[in-house]
């Protein structure tokens, strides 16, 4: 009898372990899924304010965690503006002044191209993996998918102001929602996926919105128009000279 109970307990723990995957692993997979080893995408960013709205089209290239290049293509006024991220550093280029500027640390928490995303949001996204403690909160079912909800609490000395972040990752590794909570447990802003489509053979979030929870009519939406993954990128793509003089 004891023996049977023992086996059942062992089975139970084994099955619960199988059902609750490692949250760190989930986040990494979600990011890799979004980015691929390399990626190229065309997207539109819509910035909405109570009394105005504007949109910007841009192209973006990424390679691994640390390298990315974004270039604005429309409207004509902003066309050619670019941002290059290498590791934790960021440079920006504005054709109007024909200068590459290293974004100083003092500007890292300012808004990126006027949106609700900060320069830091753009350049630091993968630090989340090792600067936080992640726990799986729950596993949700719905719309034919399983969704994992992960709570990430930043380490004491992590350069993060949030009290916690809560991720919802679908079982095909599409990031459905990322919530930013303050240290008093109040939800401050949410990055939410509004549309998922198949692009270049994989399911990706194609409409995502950064919403300030305290100001319901202020948000920034990223709409992915097309995306290619795991493509060959020229070796000089992520360089300062390419940021200034586009060659691809």
């Amino acid at each position, binding site marked *: 009898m004891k023996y049977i109970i023992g086996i059942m307990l062992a089975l139970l723990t084994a099955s619960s372990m199988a059902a609750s995957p490692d949250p760190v692993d989930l986040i990494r997979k979600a990011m890799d899924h979004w980015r691929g080893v390399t990626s190229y995408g065309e997207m539109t960013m819509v910035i909405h304010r109570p009394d105005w709205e504007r949109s910007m089209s841009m192209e973006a290239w990424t390679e691994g965690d640390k390298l990315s290049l974004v270039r604005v293509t429309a409207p004509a006024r902003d066309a050619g503006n670019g941002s290059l991220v290498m590791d934790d550093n960021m440079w920006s280029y504005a054709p109007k002044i024909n200068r590459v500027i290293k974004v100083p*640390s*003092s500007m*890292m928490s*300012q808004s990126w191209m006027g949106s609700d995303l900060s320069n830091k949001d753009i350049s630091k996204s993968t630090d989340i993996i090792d600067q936080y403690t992640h726990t799986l909160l729950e596993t949700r079912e719905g719309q034919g998918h399983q969704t994992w909800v992960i709570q990430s609490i930043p380490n004491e000395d992590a*350069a993060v*102001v949030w009290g916690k972040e809560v991720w919802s990752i679908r079982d095909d590794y599409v990031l459905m929602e990322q919530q930013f909570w303050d240290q008093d447990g109040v939800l401050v802003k949410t990055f939410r996926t509004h549309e998922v489509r198949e692009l270049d053979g994989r399911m990706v979030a194609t409409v995502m919105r950064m919403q300030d929870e305290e100001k319901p009519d202020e948000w920034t939406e990223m709409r992915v128009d097309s995306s290619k993954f795991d493509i060959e990128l020229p070796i000089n793509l992520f360089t300062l000279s390419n940021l200034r003089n586009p060659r691809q």
Partner: protein
Amino acid sequence: MADHQPAAGILFTLAWRNLWRNHRRTLIMLIAIVIGVWAMILFSSLMAGMVDEMVRGGLRTLPGEVQIHHPDYRDDPSIANSIDAPQGALLERLNNPPVTGWAARIKVPAMISSERANRGIQLLGVDPAQEVSLGFDPTNIVEGRFLEGPDDKGLVIGRKLAERLETRLGKRVVIMSQDPDNNVADRGIRVVGIYQARLQATEELNVYGGLETLQKMLNVDNQVSEIAITGDDFRQVASWWPQIQQATGPELETVPWMELDGYLESMMKMQTSFNVIITVVIFLTLSFGLVNTLVMAVFERVREIGLMMALGMRPGWIMYQVLLESIILLGLGLLLGNLLAVATILPLEDGIDISALAKGLEMAGMGSTLYPSLRLSDMVLSTVVVLVLGLLASLLPAWRASRYNPIQALART
């Protein structure tokens, strides 16, 4: 000359009695002088208190009266322009009088962020014990505690900054700056203390972290941005700061506060010239009254003066007597005025609350309490000005009295 001594005694008696012959006029004049002297001293002590407070406040935020920097630091206060912490001859010099306190600190521009706001700040990496010796008052901590050592992992921010960031004691914030290679250097850090300062601007600007904690974050080893040194008295700095400069050597920049903050120094100079101008202006108005009193006294006594001259008094003695009258009047007025000023200012030296004007005062870099400072030099200055100008003003009536023709004077009715 031998008969001068009894003559002087008689002249004094005559002058004294003449003064009180029309006691109402003399009293009014006396009151005018007393109030004038009192106003001069009170005004200059208020001004001096204001300027002292400004200079002391300025030195507290500088801080110190002498600072040592990398030669380029004052133009570009980045962590790249750091210096070694004091050692050898300099350390020896710093630990001996007249230096009463010093601190080797990191001071770099940085950003602080909470969930809801970002602010530009001045990040100070300090050893709390040194900071206290330099004049940081731990009782200014209104919540939580001050840092406990150079390796403290907490952050102490100003009350106003906490309000602006919408953060509180015990919350984590992120501080961000640059390391010497211009890479982003940042970390999360918990607010362990909130301090209040005399000026809101200070509360918003200065953020204190542990020296070693920040050195690690900024990737510098045992390096500091500045060494701030204080003696006991900001007026005495000129006498000892060259010694510090000598101990520091020519490759670093040693600067006294007069050069660090030219505004403070010119404020001090301006105050001194202001005092003289105000004293003179107040006295000019007074002198008209004084001249009038004496002229009237002389006119009333034309016949009497004529009689004295006819009896053989020399014109010089007549002049001497009128001058003596004014000296007695001035002397009495000065004595009472000074006493009244001392009696008014001493009880006020603990501070006058002028917080109703706090906003305007803050723009001028002053706190909301005014501490009048009574200085002997101010009292001597107003006394000398009143005596000298008073005698000058009474020269005219005295001279006129001495020029009367005895016959015409006696014939006057």
